[in-house]
């Protein structure tokens, strides 16, 4: 292709920095080899969550990535990449990347920064943090990790060694509530063993857009005859493969789960041995679920009673059966945690807990990812100081059950504590990938960040949150750093940078260890550096970095033995009673109902009929789209062009009633606020429900949610069920 053509092809392309724009030669097709000078180097994609992180073949020419492709050596991703992964070049070489450390000049509204050297930046941060520690105590400094998650163990250790209990993460809105639900019932519960299962109960999860490698496994299992029950208000790509779809009204999962339990118990389909010998509180549970007959549940959930009965029988009588939930759809409700407990109780009730083809209990190897038989010392590494030796955590008073189970502070409470100064002042924060749009009522979080004495943000791009910081540090991408990664296939990789860090960016780990030298000189292990800490964590696996470095394309561990099944028979459950708890001891002790009770979402047509008069539609937010992962790929043309406008999914029936046509501009309102979006008429959503993706910079739906619209137990926001109205915008208002 000639240069003139290329130039015209790139008209309107503003994503990539021109310095790294690749000169494409169509005839050679970027085929690697001596002729093209393209070499393949191995890395991983870390744009999305740690359960994916597909293996990447980076095609590198003259030190620049010219193409990416899935790595076939990676048994998890098997040579595939998703729509986000294929856009890695626009991510790496984006023009918005932060080039140097920056220090703010002027007030927070000015957005004016000047470059500063790394040494000066790190010295400045250390000086301010140590001064604040001296004046107000170490707890006044908050350490926060957003996306990606790979730096978490090091950041948590830095926080605790510094003396602050206030290490918190994006997990304050993601996964941890589902984890809590399972932990309250069982101590721990792992994902479904799909490959060996005969029936899969998918409870509001869409792995096709959140974990494509898992989705591929489900399709393969389906072709072998796996039965599938799909639960959720939306139609996902999975729905077409389901034998039964239970299309609930958002927020009513708990009622459906209790009704399924009702059918299973009434018909005697439960596992009598398990219930009799290994559970606590079954009689109270049985009594409670008695009121959730299929008829009652039909009224609450909108799912026909006959379908509930059919699904209950299929799940309870097909052995083994497994359950798949997701990180947050079941728990982003004001009764989310209890709903989730009611859902996962079905696993034990049917005898599918920790059996082949059921839901296994395998401890994570490293960073949330399991690799059966391999477990690192990550938890011991992270927690360098006992909780008792530190001040109470943010959220300790409001969310005691969280603090019993989750070794982090509850970040959803953070803006309230900054604003109130209670129980102690929060004065400074070190954030990695911090995004105030993640908080319900994001403007409240934004205003709270502005109140801090000192805010440091580490990020790849100059985000709206980074613009509020006093010091901004440039991080690099996964292509520019070394990191440890485990996969479920007992495959492990220590990546080598495939390109040098761009501009003056550095790996998050390097930044943390440089700060550790200045902030926690007494932490002997951290002073030994990043690789020494990795080796320390790896110790129980018998793996070493020295060995892993010999395998740049990764390494499959042989001889690691997966843990046995039904471990509870020998060890009991990791709950206070050592039994599976239908009635939770921890919830009773922390002042909540021990049963997995059902409550309506605080804003639903049934619970708030007065509000529903003006706001009759149910708003559900944050359901995954394939090309976005939270806010991380909005700025890439290759992903953004796949869904350029902020689209509100709306059923054609609701749209027609409001005179709304496809792609009309509409106003989406809740009692709190409103945003301007475009209507997307689709049967993906049922009538009465609209669905909006979160985090669009120009139409952020979290503005519409009150900061305290949260589950009291977990602290999770009720993002997935509230009330709203949609009105067509007239010409003049557009």
């Amino acid at each position, binding site marked *: 292709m000639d240069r003139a053509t290329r130039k015209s092809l790139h008209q309107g392309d503003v994503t990539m920095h021109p310095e790294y724009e690749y000169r494409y030669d169509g005839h050679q097709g970027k085929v690697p080899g001596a002729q093209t000078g393209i070499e393949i180097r191995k890395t991983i994609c870390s744009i999305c969550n740690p359960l994916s992180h597909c293996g990447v073949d980076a095609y590198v020419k003259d030190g620049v990535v010219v193409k990416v492709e899935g790595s076939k050596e990676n048994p998890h991703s098997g040579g595939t990449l998703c729509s986000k992964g294929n856009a*890695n070049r626009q991510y790496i070489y984006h023009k918005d990347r932060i080039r140097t450390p920056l220090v703010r000049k002027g007030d927070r509204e000015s957005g004016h920064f000047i470059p500063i050297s790394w040494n000066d930046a790190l010295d400045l941060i250390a000086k301010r943090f140590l001064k604040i520690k001296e004046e107000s105590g170490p707890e006044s400094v908050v350490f926060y990790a957003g996306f990606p998650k790979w730096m978490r163990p090091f950041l948590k250790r830095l926080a605790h060694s510094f003396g602050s209990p206030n290490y918190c993460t994006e997990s304050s809105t993601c996964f941890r509530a589902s984890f809590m639900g399972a932990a309250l019932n069982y101590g721990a519960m792992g994902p479904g063993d799909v490959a060996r299962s005969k029936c899969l109960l998918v409870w509001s999860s869409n792995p096709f857009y959140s974990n494509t*490698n898992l989705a591929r496994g489900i399709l393969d299992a389906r072709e072998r005859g796996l039965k599938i029950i799909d639960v959720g208000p939306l139609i996902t790509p999975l729905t077409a493969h389901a034998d039964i779809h239970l299309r609930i009204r958002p927020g009513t999962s708990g009622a459906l789960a209790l009704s399924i339990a009702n059918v299973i118990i009434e018909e005697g389909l439960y596992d009598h041995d398990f219930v009799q010998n290994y559970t606590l509180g079954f009689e109270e549970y049985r009594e409670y679920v008695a009121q959730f007959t299929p008829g009652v549940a039909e009224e609450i959930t909108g799912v026909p009673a006959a379908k509930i009965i059919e699904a209950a029988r299929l799940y309870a009588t097909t052995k083994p059966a497994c359950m798949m939930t997701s990180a947050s759809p079941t728990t982003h409700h004001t009764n989310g945690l209890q709903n989730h407990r009611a859902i996962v109780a079905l696993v034990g009730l049917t005898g599918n807990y920790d059996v082949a083809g059921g839901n296994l209990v395998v401890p994570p190897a490293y960073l949330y990812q399991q690799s059966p038989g391999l477990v690192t010392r990550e938890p011991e590494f992270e927690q360098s100081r006992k909780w008792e030796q530190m001040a109470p955590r943010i959220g300790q008073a409001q969310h005691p059950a969280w603090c019993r189970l989750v070794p982090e502070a509850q970040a959803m409470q953070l803006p309230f504590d900054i604003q109130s100064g209670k129980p102690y002042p929060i004065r400074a924060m070190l954030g990695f990938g911090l995004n105030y749009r993640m908080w319900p009522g994001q403007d409240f979080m934004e205003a709270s960040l502005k109140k801090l004495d000192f805010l440091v943000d580490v990020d790849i791009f100059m985000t709206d949150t980074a613009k509020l910081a006093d010091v901004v540090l440039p991080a690099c991408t996964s292509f520019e750093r070394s990191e440890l990664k485990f996969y479920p296939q007992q495959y492990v990789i220590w990546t080598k940078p495939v390109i040098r860090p761009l501009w003056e960016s550095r790996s998050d780990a390097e930044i943390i260890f440089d700060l550790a030298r200045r902030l926690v000189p007494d932490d002997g292990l951290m002073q030994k550096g990043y690789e020494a800490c990795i080796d320390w964590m790896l110790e129980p696996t018998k793996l070493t970095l020295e060995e892993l470095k010999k395998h740049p394309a990764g390494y499959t561990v042989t001889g690691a033995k997966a843990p046995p099944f039904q471990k509870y028979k020998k060890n009991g459950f990791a709950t206070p009673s050592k039994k599976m708890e239908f009635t939770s001891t921890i919830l009773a002790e922390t002042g909540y109902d021990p049963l997995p009770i059902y409550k309506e979402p605080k804003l639903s047509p049934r619970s708030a009929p007065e509000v529903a008069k003006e706001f009759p539609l149910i708003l559900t937010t944050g359901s995954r789209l394939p090309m976005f992962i939270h806010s991380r790929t909005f700025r890439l043309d290759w992903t953004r*062009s796949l869904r350029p406008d902020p689209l509100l999914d709306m059923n054609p029936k609701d749209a027609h009633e409001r005179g709304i046509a496809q792609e009309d501009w509409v106003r989406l309102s809740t009692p709190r606020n409103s945003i301007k979006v475009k209507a997307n008429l689709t049967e993906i959503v049922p009538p009465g429900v609209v669905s909006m993706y979160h985090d669009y910079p120009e139409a952020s739906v979290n503005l519409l949610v009150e900061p305290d619209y949260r589950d009291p137990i977990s602290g999770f926001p009720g993002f997935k069920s509230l009330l709203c109205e949609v009105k067509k915008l007239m010409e003049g208002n557009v």
Partner: protein
Amino acid sequence: MNTPQLGFSFDLSRCSGCMACMSACFDQNDMPGNGSTFRHVSRIETGTYPSVSIRYVSLACMHCGDAPCVAVCPNRALSKRPDNGIVEVNKDLCIGCHACATACPFGAPQFPEGSFMRKCDFCVARVTQGLEPACARTCPTKALGFGPIEKLTEDKAKAASVKIVSSFNPNLAALGVGLTKP
């Protein structure tokens, strides 16, 4: 058939509409990201609540056996490669008249720069080196495939036979037993 005709295979039941094929194509071909694309993914909805079916279809140039674009091109800019049947465009001959776009039933021809036509070239430079087209390689659900048409047809028939047999005896399917050649 002496010279194989290459083609894409597409399994409608496995496509999730994730558009990984589109972004892989963007990356392979350095596309501008302004909406111009050689591959399209469409959502097809049938029925209304509560009886709805939603499917996704991924389409690019089909490299048709009897390609209408080749037939209508007034300047013979389009041709079928004799060795593999890939429909190629010669940019030096293309006059940008859009006749091919009018004739193509799949919307394959694109005019991203407003002058000559560009479309999917089956990643011919990769394929002739034994690599897969970028879209087929990346497909997370393995809905997209490629190969000589004859082989794709045979594979499809085989898969259908397995389904028929397993409908009589599910255990055969569970064991991975199908109609394979004796």
